[in-house]
């Protein structure tokens, strides 16, 4: 208790750093005050990073809850204003680090809208984007479900979730070169085509994954402890969702089949067959069911996308064929461990001065984007992820703002938690599935 505080305004203050709760318990016994204000976080394991919750308790009941954010603010939006449009993907991929492909795609779609090239993105690139996004949706939901289980005291779903996520991480590493922070989706298409063998690997994954999802369902779907901790907990109905701008699985668990993939399709989602998962419970359990169902639907989409990538779209380009915009080189990992494209080097150094100039200008200076603003939104695992992209006609973004679903959904946490028990706060936050990298950006 070294920090100075004003007892008159703040009341009696107990600091618990580490483990010594005895002091607090003894103190609370002495005091006559009924109200206890507890700081949960910013470094509490169940706060998904560095979220701080200020809870006013009356016994076990939460009478007031406030979320405090900003502990992971990294200035991504500001930094992007000092890099080229292409370099921007490297920043946005780090926002919501559990769904990097979605961040990149939303941003790229915004830039493409500004450039007016949305219709000219090659179909193969769109199919690869869809496949990668759906893989990413599964991996994000697996983390959501895994940590969810653990926060409610069940460690096995956590181990299962992370074990199964590893399959997707391996695929991502094989395809993009990195497990996270891929910068794979770029304005104009994707950075490189799928490497040899990727289609087979995704095919194997598609065979394995339904079993794994069933395993998690077996653990949680009818688990009496889990159901009692989640049913009718953190209730937020459709009216609440609309007022607070809540989207994603929370909205669909309130019964509204609002999924941008269906209602305002992008990247060719209108050509894929899948169902939108909805539930009517408005509670934590319904949100869990929606996420599980979405993973199963994602597998269907991946299968269809994979058929197209391996079939009719085989050998097609994955970057827009526009010398002024499309990134020139298609890099492949060489035996020396470096990425290079011998054909491209022979082309620019030996046969085409024009190609050399384009390569040089695009890489050093970047392309120019006509002035104006655009808003592109996609259905990320957490809800509507929107990119508001403003250009002044230059080679750098003038302003990029992300409508982060975690940020908006987290705002609804007091509405879910107030009036409930302290233990339900954990379930409420877990069901929102906030990623603080995305909330704070």
């Amino acid at each position, binding site marked *: 208790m070294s920090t100075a505080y004003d007892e008159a305004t703040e009341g009696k203050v107990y600091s618990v750093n580490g483990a010594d709760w005895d002091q607090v318990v003894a103190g609370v016994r002495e005091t006559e005050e009924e109200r206890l204000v507890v700081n949960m976080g910013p470094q509490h394991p169940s706060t998904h990073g560095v979220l701080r919750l200020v809870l006013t308790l009356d016994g076990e009941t939460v009478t007031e809850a406030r979320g405090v*954010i*900003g502990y992971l*603010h990294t*200035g991504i*939006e*500001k*930094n992007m*204003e*000092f*890099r080229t449009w292409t370099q921007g993907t490297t920043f946005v991929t780090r926002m919501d680090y559990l769904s990097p492909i979605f961040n990149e795609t939303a941003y790229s779609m915004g830039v493409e*809208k*500004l450039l*007016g090239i949305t219709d000219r993105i090659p179909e193969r690139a769109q199919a690869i984007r869809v496949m990668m996004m759906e893989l990413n949706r599964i991996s994000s939901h697996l983390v959501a479900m895994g940590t969810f289980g653990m926060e409610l005291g069940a460690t096995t779903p956590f181990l299962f979730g992370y074990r199964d996520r590893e399959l997707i991480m391996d695929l991502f590493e094989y395809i993009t070169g990195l497990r996270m922070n891929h910068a794979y989706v770029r304005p104009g298409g994707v950075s490189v085509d799928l490497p040899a063998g990727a289609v087979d690997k995704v095919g194997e994954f598609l065979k394995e994954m339904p079993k794994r999802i069933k395993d998690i369902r077996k653990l949680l779907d009818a688990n009496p402890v889990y159901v009692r901790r989640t049913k009718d907990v953190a209730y937020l109905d459709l009216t609440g969702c*609309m*007022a*607070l*701008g*809540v*989207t994603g699985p929370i909205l669909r668990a309130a019964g*509204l089949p*609002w999924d941008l993939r269906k*209602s*305002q399709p992008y990247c060719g989602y209108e050509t894929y067959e899948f169902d939108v998962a909805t539930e009517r419970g408005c509670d934590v359990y319904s949100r869990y069911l929606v996420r599980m169902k979405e993973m199963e639907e994602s597998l269907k989409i991946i299968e269809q996308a994979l058929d197209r990538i391996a079939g009719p779209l085989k050998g097609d380009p994955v970057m827009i064929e526009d010398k002024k915009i499309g990134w020139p080189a298609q890099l492949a990992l060489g035996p020396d461990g470096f990425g290079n494209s011998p054909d491209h080097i022979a082309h620019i150094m030996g046969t085409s001065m024009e190609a050399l100039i384009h390569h040089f200008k695009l890489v050093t*200076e*970047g392309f*120019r984007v*006509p*002035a*104006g*603003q*655009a*808003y592109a*939104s996609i259905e990320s695992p957490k809800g*509507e992820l*929107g990119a*508001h992209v*403003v250009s*002044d*006609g*230059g*080679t*750098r973004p*003038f*302003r990029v*703002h992300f*409508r982060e679903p975690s*940020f*908006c959904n987290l*705002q609804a946490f007091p509405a879910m938690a107030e009036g409930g028990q302290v233990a339900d706060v954990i379930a409420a936050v877990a069901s929102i599935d906030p990623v603080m990298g995305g909330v*704070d950006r």
Partner: protein
Amino acid sequence: MTSPDNLPEVPDAQVPEVPAAQEPPIARQGMFGATDSGDTSGYGGLVVRRPPQISTPRPYGSYFDEVVDALALDDAIERVVVDRGELTLHVKRERLVEVSQKMRDDPALRFELSLGVSGVHYPHLTGEELHAVYHLCSITHNRRVRLEVSCPDADPHIPSTVGVYPGHDWHERETYDFFGIIFDGHPALTRIMMPDDWEGHPQRKDYPLGGIPVEYRGATIPSPDHRRSYS
């Protein structure tokens, strides 16, 4: 045969007065923003002008005409812009709450879902430097619209819309934190991302990015905001 001498004389009064086309202000001269050395690139005479502010005349196309008609608050709208398939309504700031209320409640509009507030700082637009941009979405009609409000840097006040869209609470705090726009009527307008005692508003264009030059093997790489810029 006509020579310059026997051309019929035209009285001055018959030549119509053509006002000189107003050119948008210059955004940039030269190529690399370098002023400390002689121009060897040949781009020294390059003049890039700012794009003019657009205002779209009717018909707007798509469902945009219906939205503007249903709103029927023409005196509250400064200009309508249809660009890249998106409708933007520039709203007078004192009428913002009224417009958003109608946007949400009118059965023909029903923009029930707001996707938040995004600030933009345009230092070159004198008198309307700070913009707040609202993206609205109608689930009933499956439509989108963008509202844009501006305020001068000297008087950075915009009425709060938390009463209409409660979800704007954190968004307005964020925009205040990053741009210094004061949302009048917000229940608790405090900083949200930056620490409470932070000075300045980081997303403004006059706020530096910061960073230090990095030295590597004798060469110095300047921080990102001091590197050569092409735009």
